[in-house]
């Protein structure tokens, strides 16, 4: 399953610009639901991007990252068709991953 991750990695010269959107509630643990009960914290803690066995970007997130998080970064040394492995893990131990292709 990798339904939660959307990645676009576009090559410009030898630099790939990577835009990522993840579907995740990113609950802070401070918000109450309709019944007035606190919604427990549920948020992505770590998001990593691996290109040719090298971690090119590693995000550590707290609850202040917006729901359905978006992040953009760029890395050098990429070529068209390269694989970029994306994976996240949240505070409940849930995880998802996806292999994107640089285009």
């Amino acid at each position, binding site marked *: 399953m*990798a339904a939660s*991750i*959307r*990645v*676009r990695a576009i090559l410009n010269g030898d*630099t790939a610009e990577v*835009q990522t*959107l993840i*579907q995740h509630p*990113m609950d*802070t643990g*401070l*918000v*109450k639901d309709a019944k007035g009960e606190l919604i427990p914290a549920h948020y992505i*803690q*770590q998001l*990593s*991007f*691996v290109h040719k*066995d*090298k*971690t*090119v*970007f*590693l*995000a*550590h*997130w*707290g*609850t*202040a*990252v*917006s*729901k*359905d*998080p*978006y*992040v*953009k*970064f*760029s*890395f*050098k*040394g990429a070529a068209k068709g390269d694989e970029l*492995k*994306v*994976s996240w*893990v949240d505070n409940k131990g849930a*995880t998802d*991953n*996806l*292999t*994107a*292709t640089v*285009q």
Partner: protein
Amino acid sequence: MTSSFSRTATRRIFLKGAGLVALIGLGNAVLHAPPALAAANDDKYPEDAFKQKNTSDAIKALYGRDHEASDKIKLDAPEIAENGGVVPISVTTTLPNVTSIAFIVAENPSALAASYKIPEGTVPAVANRLKMAKTSNVIALVEAGGKLYSATKEVKVTVGGCGG
């Protein structure tokens, strides 16, 4: 009221973005690669830093050193955010040898919002979207060459991002 407004707006923005990447996303082969976490074991999740309430404690827990303001960091954030649930914030820097970038929202219940490791070869620039509980200073921290630099900008929030 506040809550439902902010949720709808968030969803709308997400859908817009999702539409942009959906086509490409569909083209991706779904491989069951092992999670890449093994490669990142030496970069453990800084649980303690994310628990700190105020800015100085969070910076201390994350970096353990003082920061100085730098004009080589460009922090891009709106003057006024209508929806504190989704505030687009980005940073770029011309500082050499950047190893990490972090974002702090001073007035949030927990100050540290996000921390990014920038390995060699990765461009020292990050864009993301953060929640802001109320009007606050946003601080971008850049660790470069073993030193810690910062840039600060105030963002006015009209509707808070903590569900009201």
